[in-house]
């Protein structure tokens, strides 16, 4: 019970606080340089180091500096919404059509007119009113282990409800936004009753428990625990090109089967309503959507460029597909209905 104890403690605490303050302010000052008038602030749902190289290239060409804040798509939408007109973000980049549509409905984007964007981005991959534009394409084919399931069985997504697949089909859960968009695609093309039948059939075939992510599910296909699964192409491409031998071996046993038509989804960007530098944001959007940089933006994550198949050898080996004609805007519009239908039909 000597006060000495506390003195003992107060010295390190004081020194620690001092050190912390110094350190934090040093870090703070170094990385909190005020955004200049020529900067573009980007909120992005993507997290690839190669993106930063592209932004640096943009700065080299235009003199416009890019400040980046990466996060979860849904959270960035909420953040932008809460910040309102005070937001510092000029450009919002999101993954998945449903989220892009949500941001559009919340009035977070402004309309921009750009002949370049209209030329580089196909009509079904952008907002008809010019509020957002796709930057990359991703596909969600069926991944099959030929030792367990004959790939010829699967010509469309509807074939996944065939009884031959009983106990062999692996799926991600309903929370997966990619599955929600796939269901919306089916809804638009085939109507509600057929989509409901399809889900019920798949649920009857599914091997429980459902997966919470694509990569472990693809490993299960490669290891022969699942005969078929629905996954985005880049997860498999990443395993094949990765530095992990076990992953490469598992991925090599998986065959990509392209349903006719194949569901595709996008990464897209739009200039925010609160943008202080809408001009710079538009330029950055045009730069990212242009064929040359767009190729880089897509290959960062083994995705497809806006037009054609790109030059990624891994993707080329997967072969080509006939993309669904459903527009991204429709996928977004029907998302809520799709999720309700999934819940009703028993997709956990």
């Amino acid at each position: 019970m000597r006060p000495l104890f506390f003195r003992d403690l107060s010295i390190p605490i004081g020194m620690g606080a001092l050190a912390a303050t110094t350190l934090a302010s040093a870090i703070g000052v170094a990385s909190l340089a005020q955004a200049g008038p020529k900067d573009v602030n980007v909120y992005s749902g993507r997290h690839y180091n190669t993106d930063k190289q592209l932004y640096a290239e943009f700065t080299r060409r235009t003199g416009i500096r890019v400040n980046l804040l990466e996060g979860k798509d849904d959270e960035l939408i909420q953040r932008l919404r809460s910040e309102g007109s005070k937001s510092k973000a000029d450009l919002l980049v999101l993954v998945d059509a449903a989220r892009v549509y949500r941001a559009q409905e919340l009035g977070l984007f402004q309309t921009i007119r750009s002949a370049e964007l209209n030329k580089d981005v196909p009509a079904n991959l952008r907002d008809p009113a010019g509020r957002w534009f796709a930057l990359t394409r991703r596909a969600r084919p069926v991944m099959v282990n030929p030792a367990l399931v004959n790939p010829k069985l699967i010509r469309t997504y509807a074939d996944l409800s065939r009884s031959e697949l009983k106990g062999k089909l692996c799926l991600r859960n309903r929370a997966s936004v990619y599955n929600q968009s796939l269901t919306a695609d089916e809804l638009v093309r085939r109507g509600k009753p057929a989509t409901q039948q399809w889900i019920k059939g798949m649920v009857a075939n599914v091997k429980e428990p459902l997966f919470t992510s694509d990569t472990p599910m693809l490993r299960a296909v490669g290891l022969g625990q699942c005969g078929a699964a629905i996954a985005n192409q880049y997860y498999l491409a990443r395993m094949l090109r990765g530095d992990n031998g076990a992953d490469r071996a598992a991925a090599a046993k998986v065959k990509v089967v392209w349903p006719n038509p194949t569901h595709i989804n996008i990464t897209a960007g739009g200039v925010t309503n609160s943008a202080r530098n809408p001009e710079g944001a538009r330029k950055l959007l045009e730069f990212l959507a242009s064929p040359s940089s767009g190729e880089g933006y897509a290959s960062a994550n083994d995705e497809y460029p806006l037009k054609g198949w790109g030059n990624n050898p891994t993707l080329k080996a997967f072969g080509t597909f006939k993309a669904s004609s459903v527009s991204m805007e429709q996928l977004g519009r029907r998302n809520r209905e799709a999720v309700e239908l999934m819940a009703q039909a028993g997709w956990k």
Partner: protein
Amino acid sequence: MQTAATSPAAASAPPPRASRWILVGGVVLVSLLALAPLLSLLGGALFGEGPGGLALGVDGVEQMRGTLLLVAGEGFLGAILGTAIGWLTAVCRFPGRRWLRIAQLVPMAFPAYLLAASLIDWASYRGLRIHGLGWAVLLLTLANYSYVFLLSTESFSVSGRRLLEASRSLGVGPWSSFFRVALPIALPSIGAGVALSAMEVVNELGAVRLLGVPSLSAGILDRWQVDGNPQGAALLSLAALAIVALLITGERLLRQRSRRWNLEGRDAAEHVWQLRGWRALLAQLVTALPPLCALAIPVLWVQQGWQALAAESIGELTQLASRSLGLALLATGLTGMGALLLAICRRWSPQPLVQQLSFLAGLGYAIPGSVLALGLIVLGGPLGISPVLLLLWGYGDRFMAVSKQGLDAGLERIPPSIDETAASLGCNWQGVLRRIHLPLLRGPLLVGSLLVFVDVVKELPITLALRPFDFDTLAVRVFQYASDERVGAAMAPALLIMALGLVAALALVPTLERRD
């Protein structure tokens, strides 16, 4: 031994009127800071616009059930494990005891979401499925039982030694001594530890999502962000809050039933029971298993995919780590000061307002971090507060309870008679604080600070939502990689988080050692 069931504010060395108002003002300020984001959110949710629907719905009921099962499972397992290990390492003697006591600090450094992500990743290479409630309870227990261990072992070490010796000399066996003497004295600390770990569980997002367990925290976020239904989210938040309020109230009741002031010299370092033969072996097994499991998961994971470590840039990692470290140190200091103010005021001020405010200020721990962050954005946006300050505000709000719980339990062990004696000897309240309370609160203060530090280094949702442009931390980087399913790439920052946590945990070793 005295027992009483009155409020701890029974000290009769109250500060003079003027200082008392300053103290109460401080409490009101700290509590308001803590409650502001929540109030702004609740207001917005209940009176704002949006698709209404104040109903739990099928999903809501499932999420409620999932969270309750998780809390019950983890609370039960964590209480047993933490108390057993706390007891064994504090008053029994067996080979390797000292090292095993230090080893209990290892699991603290590993956030549950990392344990889950790395275990799922590792197992999926072998065709094993790690999924569902059972695994979630196990992993959450592993990540959080240290709360119970730290607070209970501290209590077993400093309280009741003499009582234990007395009961032993009267021929009471070790089991009876534990249940009839030591456990009642340690109950407030155990309760505080269980309440803290249960709050962590209510708030856990990453791990339960990965393991496919429906939970309130995920439900709140989804309703808010995906369905655009802030009212529904507020309702679920209230449900989460209710669970936490119940936990805290239950813990309070336990304390009141077993209030025993107890202070003895720490020189009574006699170990009461020597364990030999199979008993010693069993003690070793029980105390070694959790740290070994916690260590094994990342080790196996690294062994599976060490190739990913080669691709990291050292410069960037250093930058990320220094940001995490600076933020954690600052937040620890701020939170510690706020919590000390609240705890001291609770002791001195019998006003119910102060009691209730300080209770409410600890509730931030129960709100999902992302929801808290949104509240701060709503508040801070119009006020033009800098993002780093908002971030620190968020940390302080979230972790106030961590600091406060241990301090409250520590103050409860100090008999009011000591304050009275000091006052009668002419010691003013500052003197009592400086010369009596603070030295006695050294342990809880240090343990609390350490827990806050480790928590901030691990913290994800608030950091992710409030950080300024180009200001990533280790946890943010781990999340970015993991959410893209590039778990291998997350390895280097993840290992650094664990290393920082370990270093911080090791700072506790002298405290544990001194008692030996």
